[in-house]
């Protein structure tokens, strides 16, 4: 299985096995359930659709209600497809709860989320520009400016993709290789070391690390 849908609860610190305090993000994956499946015969690819978060049926549109009815599953607020091999998909039936024990302590995971919105931001926040290096010697109203944005007559234009002020945040970001510090199956919690994209209560996708998987693939290919 290739992942879970979760809710970012917030950050705290816990003691690890060595007795050192490590920063962790708590992710709630309590209501993850298999809602449907994609099969190569019907859809040309294989995937498992997971649902997360409870929702009243009343607030759903008829087509969405129909999807849940067809699969005979309780309605869920968030749906997400995870691509898996057909063999792996065989192990999952519609209606099955997917638990936090999919992940083990020490495993590396990738976490995808939507980052916090920062509105229209200047270059210092958006691109980590350094800003003006002096506040005195006649400098005024220039402390957070971007400086020069090009050359002279040649080329006579600003290059495309030049880092400038603009809208920042509210974009999908994946943080790779976060290690799982603890798993609480009973409460449906996963604790990962470090920060995770998004605000508290944001929906995040937790997947096994792709880099670890690739490394293993290369190893297998080399024999």
């Amino acid at each position: 299985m290739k992942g879970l849908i979760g809710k970012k609860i917030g950050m705290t610190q816990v003691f690890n096995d060595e007795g050192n305090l490590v920063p962790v993000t708590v992710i709630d994956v309590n209501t993850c359930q298999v809602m449907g499946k994609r099969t190569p015969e019907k859809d040309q690819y294989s995937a498992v659709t997971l649902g997360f978060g409870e929702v009243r049926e009343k607030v759903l549109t008829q087509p969405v209600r129909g999807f849940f009815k067809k699969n005979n599953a309780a309605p869920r607020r968030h749906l997400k497809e995870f691509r898996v091999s057909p063999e792996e998909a065989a192990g999952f039936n519609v209606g099955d709860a997917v638990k936090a024990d999919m992940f083990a302590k020490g495993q590396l995971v990738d976490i995808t989320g939507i980052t916090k919105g920062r509105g229209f931001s200047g270059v210092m926040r958006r691109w980590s520009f350094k800003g003006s290096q002096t506040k005195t010697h006649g400098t005024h109203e220039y402390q957070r400016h971007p400086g020069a944005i090009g050359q002279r007559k040649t080329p006579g234009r600003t290059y495309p993709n030049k880092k400038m002020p603009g809208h920042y945040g509210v974009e999908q970001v994946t943080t790779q290789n976060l290690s799982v510090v603890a798993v609480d199956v009973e409460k449906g919690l996963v604790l990962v070391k470090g920060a995770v994209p998004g605000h508290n209560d944001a929906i995040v996708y937790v997947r096994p690390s792709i880099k670890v998987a690739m490394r293993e693939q290369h190893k297998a290919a080399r024999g």
Partner: protein
Amino acid sequence: MRRDLIQHVESKYLRQDVTSFRTGDSVRVHWKVKEGEKERVQAFEGVVIRKKKGQHRATFTVRKMSFGVGVERIFPLHSPRYEKIEVLTHGDVNRNRLFYLRGLKGKASRVAVQEDTEAKAAAKSSKGA
């Protein structure tokens, strides 16, 4: 609900056997030190000059003089890495944070000991042994 879940996580990391002591007390912290494969216990003895609150994040600072140099060490109160905290004497102080000790040397830097509690502590430790 958010707070509940975080608290649930944090509650697992609380030590149940936390010794009660106050700032001004002299304590001996039996800190476990890992040297390669082996683990041994190293004692750090001094005066508690600060206690910080905060669930399992609570810490306390112990100050001692080592070969004429002041040494301060911050210990997490709920750290699994100390064996025990021994309270040697109870100090008679008028502050919650004893940072003024940093500026004092020799005899002046001593903390007055509460007399009645000293006897109590002695009785307690003899019982424990």
